[in-house]
């Protein structure tokens, strides 16, 4: 299967207050596949997603999406490119001044998208298993419900590139599993290009097609399911050792590529 690269991160550097978080990171994200970026907490995985989305700019290096360098785009071109992407934030980032219906319909209304918005919201909420939550406030929801609403808000405008920032962080294992299943179903339905940053090996194994290990500001290991999990990198092996599944079964798990 020929892989078409959709996002190219080339030698990206980023520092905060003189401390380098990304140190010449290079990564290729293939089209219509799920790439999981594994790494310990605090290594700058979320920073990388924000760079891809254009929320932050690299100090050095290039990020190309669809062959277009983000730095060289005009604001209008950049906005058009951003419209192709959607991100699920680590803490859901729901608008707390709005109810659930307004949150989920936000992008549609902001872009004056026509059609039966109420019906679309109802369908999106149904997809994430929260039918009838339209009039609830975000403060009335649990962490897992917030994450699902954020997912519904992301999916309602069907972006071509989905970015997930620690989608299961802070959730109990059962709710985490529900979120993982939703991500898996979504990917299957939209055939989107997904990038998931996480330290949750269970999530990675269930949905990932390609894997990258982010450590010390660079990608230390990269590959498809078979090549990645047979990598001798110590951190990769440590991640595998934290899986609840026997290591020798890991490469055989998916086969979704």
């Amino acid at each position, binding site marked *: 299967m020929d892989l078409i690269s959709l996002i190219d991160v080339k030698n990206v550097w980023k520092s905060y207050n003189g401390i380098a978080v990304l140190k010449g990171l290079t990564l290729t994200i293939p089209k219509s596949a799920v790439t999981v970026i594994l790494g310990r907490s605090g290594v700058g995985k979320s920073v990388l997603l*924000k760079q891809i989305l*254009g929320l932050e700019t690299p100090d050095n290096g290039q990020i190309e999406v669809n062959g277009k360098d983000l730095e060289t785009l005009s604001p209008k071109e950049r906005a058009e490119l951003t*419209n192709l992407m959607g*991100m699920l*934030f*680590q803490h859901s*980032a729901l*608008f*707390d001044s709005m109810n659930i219906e307004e949150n989920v319909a936000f992008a549609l209304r902001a*872009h004056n998208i026509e059609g039966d918005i109420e019906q679309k919201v109802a369908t999106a909420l149904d997809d994430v298993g929260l039918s009838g939550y339209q009039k609830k406030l975000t403060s009335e929801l649990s962490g897992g419900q917030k994450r699902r609403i954020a997912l519904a808000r992301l999916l309602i405008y069907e972006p071509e590139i989905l970015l997930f920032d620690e989608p299961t962080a802070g959730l109990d294992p059962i709710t985490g599993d529900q979120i993982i299943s939703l991500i898996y179903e979504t990917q299957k339905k939209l055939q989107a290009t997904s990038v998931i940053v996480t330290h949750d090996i269970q999530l990675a194994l269930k949905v990932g097609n390609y894997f990258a290990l982010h450590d010390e500001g660079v990608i230390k290991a990269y590959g498809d399911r078979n090549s990645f999990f047979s990598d001798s990198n110590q951190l990769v092996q440590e991640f595998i050792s934290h899986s609840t599944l026997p290591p020798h079964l890991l490469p055989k798990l998916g086969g979704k590529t």
Partner: protein
Amino acid sequence: MIFQKFILNPTSNWLSGIGRYTVMVASVLRLSLSKRPKWSLLVPHLYEIGVRSLPLICLTGLATGMVLSAQSFFQLSDKGLTGVTGIMVAKSMLVEIGPILTSFMITGRVGASICAELGSMKVTEQVDAMVSMGVRPLEYLVVPRYLSMAIMMPVLTIFSSACGIFGGWLLATQLYEMTSQTFLDPISVYLTNYDIISNFVKSWLFGLLVVSIACYKGFHTKGGAAGVGRSTTSCVVISYCAILGINFLLTIILNDIYWIIYGFN
């Protein structure tokens, strides 16, 4: 090392802050002129800034007008000048105290609230979420607030000034037994259109100052809940200082313009 830590770095941060503030104000003004915001975005802010601030503005205007009247009467009675009480209250309320008092009240009630709301949205990634959905936060969050403030601030200031004059008249006629004619006649003679223009110009600029500082500080909030608190405090303090500084400059400029137009008579 000490020079860099205590002088160079703070000065450089302050200057870059001024630069970012200027860029943000310029971007918002450009957006305000290029694209009319939706009514559905504007109306809640018009209501919050205008209608919900009105009782506070009227009450503080009324109280200040009464104090001005009492002080004018008390300070001038032994000099036989109580007849100027009305015009003193009216001129003070319209030209100076009305705009300053209203902008101070709006800073505390609206500016702090805008800064805290935007700051909280910033630290909880709600602003980033908006960007990720292709919505420009300046256009969606800031422009409606700027426009609402630009519309409502002069209106509120006129209410504050009117309540102040009314309070002054009430006190002078009820407590000091001054006749309405004595209080009001000098006002009709000496109050000029220029005083009303000054009131409008000052209130409008103070309104834009308050909202721009609040939005800037809110959008540059860092560091969680504590950061929101720091931003809000800093927004209020900077707004008060900026209003007083700009008021001084405006007073000099407006007086000079008056002299250029009408001469010294």
